[in-house]
């Protein structure tokens, strides 16, 4: 009985996230004329827009993040943990808030125009979207590249020097090839992010493919058409996911020696130190200072723009949606993580990788799938809070899964067997044998899901019951009408709510 609960739970978590997507694909295939529309030149242009944005953001992210990763990984600044946290902090600021801050700054009625009379052009189009997305996605590349730099074996670089390579040659032929796996992983995360981004690009009026799908769904009320249009997005995401699993060249990612690693020597910056600090300050200023500063200034402009009741309503909605999603995701991830560490065979492997595939798909498309499924097959769920919680939880299962699996992976299965021999059932044995580690893993995973679910927009936007709102949906609604003073309090409240989870996560990263 207990074993069946564990297995059933794992199957739900594994398959759940893909059910709505599978339904979406079925719907798209049954409406034949929708598929024909895919070939319209306009849709190809939009697809091109999306891919162009992916490209520019990846280039800009890498160009911004690599120097910062080197400075905070291999130079004399490497020990500045506070700086590392600041440079990484934009990772918790959702794209639509950055877009809101950028929009609120420029233009005829923007903050700069009001305060000092400057009329900067409002960021929009490809460059605006690139700027906005870069500002909050570069930390992925930064963190990944920095971790890889810290893990490099310095004797490889010495070997290359002794074989006649200059420092620049070493960087190009030894360091860069070894950074590539880390960079590729970060590029994938960012690429999928850009592919699925909906809030920022729609605020900045850059017509990407997701935006077209949204218009088809909300504007033209053409569900089958919207479903058909989402197929290429699904295809791209699945392709990226598959590429990441296939991995890079042979041998990359293995450590050469087995010995204890010697820390790499830290480069002295000398006269370049002020320049380096200036560069990092610029990054932090743009990534953290700009959004926070703009929001605070708008708040000061009109402190009464939003009533306390509206704010409380939004806060309550976020707490319910994100908190509920976090608990539900933990409950689903629990049996899945148990199977992943204690199960064998390809069935387990497939089951465990399915939620990760689901997480790689654009949330907007996943949301559409749930909406269709709710309307047609589960009318008793459609428009209910349960559907939103279920969708959020299944989408974020992988985030809760990681720390839980780590907790079990550190424990020998012998402990669990000992608990069984002492009279506990499978479920009790699994829980009791790993309890302290599990609590920590659950707190970490829960915090991560809470953080991401609170700031998440497309799923919440598409699946919220009537009259239900969160800080995220209220921020977006006000921002899309250019009501910046009304958006600012919601956005700031949201960031304040996300802050404790960020602190928790940074502390966890330090421990590992």
């Amino acid at each position, binding site marked *: 009985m207990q074993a069946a609960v564990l297995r059933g739970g794992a199957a739900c978590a594994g398959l759940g996230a893909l059910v709505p997507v599978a339904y979406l694909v079925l719907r798209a295939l049954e409406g034949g004329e929708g598929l024909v529309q895919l070939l319209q030149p306009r849709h190809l242009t939009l697809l091109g827009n999306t891919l162009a944005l992916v490209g520019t953001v990846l280039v800009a992210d890498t160009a911004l993040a690599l120097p910062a990763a080197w400075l905070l990984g291999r130079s004399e600044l490497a020990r500045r943990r506070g700086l590392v946290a600041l440079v990484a902090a934009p990772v918790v600021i959702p794209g639509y808030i950055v877009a809101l801050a950028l929009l609120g700054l420029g233009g005829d009625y923007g903050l700069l125009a009001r305060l000092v009379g400057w009329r900067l052009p409002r960021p929009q189009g490809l460059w605006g979207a690139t700027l906005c997305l870069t500002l909050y996605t570069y930390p992925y590349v930064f963190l990944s590249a920095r971790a890889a730099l810290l893990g490099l*074996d310095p*004797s*490889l670089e*010495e*070997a*290359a*020097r*002794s*074989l*006649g*390579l*200059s420092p620049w*040659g070493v960087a190009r*032929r*030894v360091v860069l*090839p*070894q950074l*590539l796996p880390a960079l590729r992983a970060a590029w994938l995360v960012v690429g999928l992010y850009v592919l699925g981004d909906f809030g920022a690009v729609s605020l900045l009026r850059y017509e990407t493919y997701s935006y077209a799908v949204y218009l088809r769904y909300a504007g033209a009320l053409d569900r089958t058409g919207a479903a058909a249009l989402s197929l290429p997005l699904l295809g791209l995401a699945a392709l990226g996911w598959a590429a990441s699993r296939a991995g890079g*060249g*042979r*041998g*990359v*990612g*293995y*450590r*050469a*020696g*087995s*010995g204890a690693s010697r820390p790499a020597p830290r480069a002295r910056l000398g006269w370049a130190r002020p320049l380096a600090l200036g560069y990092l300050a610029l990054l932090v200023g743009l990534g953290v200072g700009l959004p926070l500063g703009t929001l605070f200034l708008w708040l000061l402009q009109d402190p009464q723009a939003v009533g306390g009741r509206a704010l409380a309503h939004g806060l309550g909605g976020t707490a319910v949606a994100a908190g509920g999603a976090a608990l539900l995701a933990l409950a689903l991830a629990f049996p899945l993580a148990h199977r992943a560490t204690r199960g064998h065979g390809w069935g387990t492997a497939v089951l465990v990788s399915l939620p990760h595939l689901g997480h790689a798909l654009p949330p907007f498309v996943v949301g559409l799938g749930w909406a269709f499924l709710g309307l047609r097959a589960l009318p008793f769920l459609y428009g209910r809070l349960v559907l939103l919680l279920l969708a959020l939880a299944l989408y974020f299962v992988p985030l809760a899964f990681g720390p839980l699996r780590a907790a079990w992976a550190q424990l020998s299965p012998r402990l669990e067997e000992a608990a069984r021999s002492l009279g506990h059932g499978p479920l009790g044995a699994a829980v009791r044998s790993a309890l302290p580690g599990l609590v920590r893993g659950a707190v970490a995973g829960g915090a991560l899901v809470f953080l991401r679910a609170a700031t998440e927009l497309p799923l919440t936007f598409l699946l919220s019951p009537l009259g239900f709102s969160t800080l995220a949906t209220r921020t977006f609604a006000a921002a899309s009408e250019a009501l910046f003073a009304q958006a600012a309090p919601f956005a700031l409240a949201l960031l304040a709510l996300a802050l404790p989870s960020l602190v928790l996560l940074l502390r966890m990263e330090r421990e590992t």
Partner: protein
Amino acid sequence: MSFLSVQALRKRFGPVEAVREVSFAAEAGEILVLVGPSGCGKTTTLRLLAGFDRPDCGRVLVGGRDITPLPPERRGIGFVFQEYALFPHLSVEGNVAFGLRGLARAERRERVGELLAMLGIAELAPRFPHELSAGQQQRVALARALAPRPRLLLLDEPFSALDAALRRDLRAELRNFLKGLGLTAVHVTHDREEALALADVLAVMRAGRVEQVGPPEEVYNRPRTPFVAAFLGRANLWPGRVLAILNGRAEVEVAGQVLCAEAAGTAPGARGVVFFRPEWAEVGPGPFVAHVQTALFLGDHWELHASCQGLPVVLSAPCAPCAGVVPFAVTRALWLSGPEG
């Protein structure tokens, strides 16, 4: 002027003086072995030679030229790392070809093939480092370091990751190989047997200094300090006092007896240590009496752990002792001044 000349190197890491005063020299084609306990500064010395670290003072001359200010890539020195440091993203062929620049593709392939064949690992060319055993990785690391035809080869404990039997085989092979190439090499190890077997010149290091340099036989048989004596093999070190000097030999009062020891530069009345190896003593009629505590059978001989007048002594005997008390004579001894190591 020697081919390799290391002059008064010093290196400090913060408060730690890793290398205090290191000087030695090797002729072209010689293998110089730096040996010492861990933490004695031998690896740091090697890294100073390679240019990975800069000395605080002192010079390194190769072929009469001061290379101290040069960066590692311009020294023409090959380095074999303790853990091999093979590039994990390159195949064996790619690793060995790494230092071959400015050569045409065909020439490069030819040189790589030649090296791999020479080391008997031609069939490994397409493999990647993680697919190799430790012994194979070691050969690839050697091939990679040799590929650009360095003037000097540095080896940092290249056998430490291998098991004892393989280590013994490779020791002979490496010496044979280096001699065949006529290459000058500096080899670092903490294994005394490996050091004695490989060296043309042996330098024993302790706490950042070279205590003695010389041919291995001489250093083994005529150590200048108790530390060197004890580090290179079993040593009996007894405190004593010089009674008289005669033809470069000292009459020493030790363990209640008078013993004649080889001595250099000492005076009557001096206090110091009498040193003899177990094989320099003969169990049988003699002035000393040992109370045997343990007798160990080591295959070709017995090793007796005993005490003599309250002093510990290790003796070597061809057969098991028939009694708990055996007499013995010391046939050769050295007088070492200074404190006991």
